[in-house]
């Protein structure tokens, strides 16, 4: 209980945040995201915004034959890497997943890598 009381009082005393939450609330930023933002702990790394490789390099057709390309989106053990990690857009991730599955079927990519 002591923590709960002390934490809200600390920001209000140190900074004039009383007007802060009210102004940022309608701004569209969810309140849960605030602590991780620049206002929270000083973040050392600025995370680069991920971009879809296929959109940027204008690769239209994701073909099951180009193993080199597909391999970039397959983890070490043969899993398809989720797009939250690779930054591939939804449309291309769908095509990519299809191509990887086709490539697996014709033994160009492993279903599960040998360990």
């Amino acid at each position, binding site marked *: 209980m002591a923590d709960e009381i002390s934490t809200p009082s600390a920001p209000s005393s140190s900074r004039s945040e009383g007007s802060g939450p009210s102004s940022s609330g309608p701004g569209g930023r969810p309140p849960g995201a605030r602590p991780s933002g620049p206002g929270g702990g000083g973040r050392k790394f600025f995370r680069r915004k991920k971009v879809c490789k296929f959109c940027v390099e204008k690769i239209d057709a994701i073909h*099951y*034959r180009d193993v080199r390309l597909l391999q970039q989106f397959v983890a070490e053990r043969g899993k398809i890497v989720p797009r939250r990690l690779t930054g591939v857009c939804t449309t291309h991730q769908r095509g990519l997943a299809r191509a990887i599955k086709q490539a697996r079927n*014709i*033994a160009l*990519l*492993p279903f599960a890598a040998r360990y």
Partner: protein
Amino acid sequence: MQRTYEIMFIVRPDILDEDLDKLIAGLEGNITQGGGSIKSLEKLGRRKLAYTVKKFNDGNYVLLTINADGSLVGEIERRLRVSEPVIKFISVRMDEEEKRVAKIKAIRATRKKLSAQPPAAPTAAAEPAPAPAAEAASA
């Protein structure tokens, strides 16, 4: 209805070259007899398999692009399944994907035209622009 298909199959690695050619020739014969046509034939050569198939760790890849009916593709698949040297195959329909890519390319081409024009466009836009302003001023 004729559609574009891509058939890739793996032939066992211990097959002789002439036997492989014979197998491919037989397959070509089947396709042309069944009313299809061969667009391209590519021997991708020997390649390591990603996993063991029928106790083989590498295989001869052959890629065949054809125009054929769906029923003919079914027939070819059946033949591939029964032919002993073929250890794995996949057939993929390509025409819709090709159409989609062509569409994207067409859209991109029109966009490029727009981006190429601006050097000329501002001068054209600049000329009519003062006239309405002058009219407005006079009015």
